[in-house]
């Protein structure tokens, strides 16, 4: 069976780099991997998804609904939008910081991120709610959340790659000037992920 990871967020949040790193790590681990990205008009502030599929029996470039093992959501509303992709016992990591669409300020439809998170809590068994702003504060920019959340998933054992493989993938994939800070982001995320899973098991 294939292992499917769906990343979702809003155009500009850095989901593409995260999915590329996951795919590269899978390949470096000797696994068969395919992925697909949202590119084009939707990138301008629209919802974006990256589908990463690991395994020999994955033919469709997109993950069929109900078969994602892990969803990494960069925004609470986007987590809910993509929840139909999650497997029954799948895990979900969600950034609790909402991005308000510009239309929401013009014509409020009552988008309430708290309601989204509450719903996720009721619907998902393995749910990690993380605050990207707080976690990324020591790094100086929320832009590093994409790499940090990969660290979180690795630390929590939600992706089965060797930590070293991901670290060397980061080294090979990002601009030299940003290697150190991204590694730092990854390791900080990994530590958070470890804490999360310990608490989860303790419960």
């Amino acid at each position, binding site marked *: 069976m294939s292992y499917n990871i769906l990343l979702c967020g809003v155009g500009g949040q850095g989901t593409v780099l995260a999915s590329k790193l996951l795919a590269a790590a899978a390949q470096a681990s000797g696994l*068969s*991997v*395919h992925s697909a990205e949202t590119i084009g008009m939707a990138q301008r502030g629209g919802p974006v998804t990256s589908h990463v599929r690991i395994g020999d029996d994955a*033919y469709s*470039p997109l993950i*069929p609904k109900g078969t994602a093992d892990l969803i990494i959501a960069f925004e609470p*509303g986007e987590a809910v939008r993509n929840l139909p992709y999650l497997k029954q016992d799948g895990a979900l990591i969600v950034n609790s910081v909402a991005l308000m669409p*510009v*239309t929401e300020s013009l014509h409020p439809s009552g988008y309430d991120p708290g309601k989204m998170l509450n719903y996720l809590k009721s619907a998902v068994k393995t749910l990690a709610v993380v605050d990207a702003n707080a976690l990324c504060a020591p790094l100086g920019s929320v832009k590093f959340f994409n790499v940090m959340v990969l660290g979180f998933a690795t630390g929590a054992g939600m992706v089965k790659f060797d930590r070293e493989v991901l670290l060397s993938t980061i080294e090979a994939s990002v601009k030299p000037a940003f290697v150190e800070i991204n590694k730092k982001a990854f390791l900080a995320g990994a530590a958070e992920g470890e804490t999360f899973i310990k608490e989860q098991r303790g419960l």
Partner: protein
Amino acid sequence: MKKEYVMGNQAIALGAIAAGVNVVCGYPGTPSSEIIETIAKHNREKAIHVEWSINEKAAMELAAGASYAGARALVTMKMMGLNVASDALMSLAYVGVEGGVVVVSADDPGPISSQTEQDTRLFAKYCRIPVFDPSSVEEAYTMIQDAFAYSEKYHTPVLFRPTTRVDHAYAGITYDDRAQPKAIPGFVKDSGRFVIFPRLSRMNHEMIEKRNPQIGEDFSSYWGNTLQGRKDSRKAVVAGGVSYAYAKEYIQDREDVRLIRVATPHPLPESFLLNALEGVEDILVVEELFPYLEEELLMLCGKHHKNWNIYGKHTGHSPLAGEITAEQAALQIGSFLGDTLTQEAPGAMPQPPARPPVLCAGCPHRAGFYAVKQAMKGRKANFSGDIGCYTLGNAKPLDMVDTCLCMGAGITMAQGLHWTDPETVNFAFVGDSTFFASGMTGVANAIYNEADLIVCILDNSTTAMTGHQPHPGTGVNMMGDVVGAISIENVLRGMGVTTVITVDPLDQSAAIAAVKECADMRGVKAIIFKSPCIALSKPVAKARVNEACIGCKKCIREVGCPAVTFAGNRAVIDESLCTGCSLCASVCPVKAIQVSGKEAR
């Protein structure tokens, strides 16, 4: 050989390089744009001529010329570009080629980033030329090389149609990283062959119709046309392109149903299909866009008096419009096979917010639109739009795009509107790349026929929507050369537009004054709103809302910038998005928005 994890479009480019391509040309269009970019990136020795042509028709004709000299040529576009190139392609189909010509026309089911849901397979049938339909990234790499071989074998241009989900999918491929362009034999003049005349067309038409069934026979043993499943199964699923991938995802290695893949929809591999469908009773066709395979099978069924039940779009088993998904295909196939399907009823979910695409925070187009809107307050005016990022100017609160049809249409449609009501001021908004692609002829048409029109060129010095490609106005080309940039202002003046005002749209008072000046003049006027795309220029300034904010929301209601939201009783600016364009500050009635670092801009 080198192994790399690549996008479908990159695989197509690397495959073309492996095929020894000599000339590569095209026009940007989602989902095809990365092909030419990849060729340019791998063209370190400049052994391949690679270019963004001014439009798809120019590219098609350039490829024909190169082919007549024996060169292999690749032309890339999205499927609507094929409409533009079709004049050249249709005739080239009659004349034929010397060096292989492969035309990539990327289809966009959904549509996700397009105006139509047209189907290139049908276009191939219309042109009477072969078409290849890859179902995966890996296949695309190999198939594009085959396309060149078939093009030369049968002296015909060949279409190659990936869809968005193949173009923008990623997979690991092993490619030939040492390939060299093939030697070009050179142009051997032969006017009896290369000059199209009615007599030549009549002769060649006959030849083409005789040849196509032969290509169909040839395709019947093509590796891309495959059959899986036991010969005693009475049911068959027929699919091509990415729909095959969806079908395979569901069927996997099951043998109780035949899974038939058609990689060469035209000319139809008839004997392959007749053989693969021998003894079958029920056929389900899984495909996107036009019911192409379905109708071909209906034709085959009648021609050979088969007793097939053919299910698909014509029988309501598959939707006629829109993209299909893996789970939709699974549902179709599952019910066709009588499988027990576990469909979960979706629980009550809170509704996530709509996120329509919007102009980026700080986009200079917003300022250009806003200036025109302010200047025309209280006057009757029409705003014809065009294809590009600036189509997003239609979104509220700007609401400044009344029409959008196809590339370059804004300028000519504004003339049509003008002749129905000369008292209304007509504006046409066009981007810099679109102006070169198909805007210039419209301006000439307006001057010649004496229309009143204000052409607003939203010049951000790039082709932004498709991923920032250069164009004739940017001064760089895909060979990596710095070249003379064509000045839009000079082009307009050269054609006879006497009023051409270039203004920075972020300088609102100057921009509004320019619009007002033009609105009162007769004839063709042009305003060039010149300011670089914010995705390419590093913003240094930030806007902040101070205590003076009275919470009137005017900045939100008027400007609609994604960086400005409302929290508590005040406007809030997201500094990670803000570029300090200061448009919001210019509309604030109480000067509560201050822009820092503005001087450094």
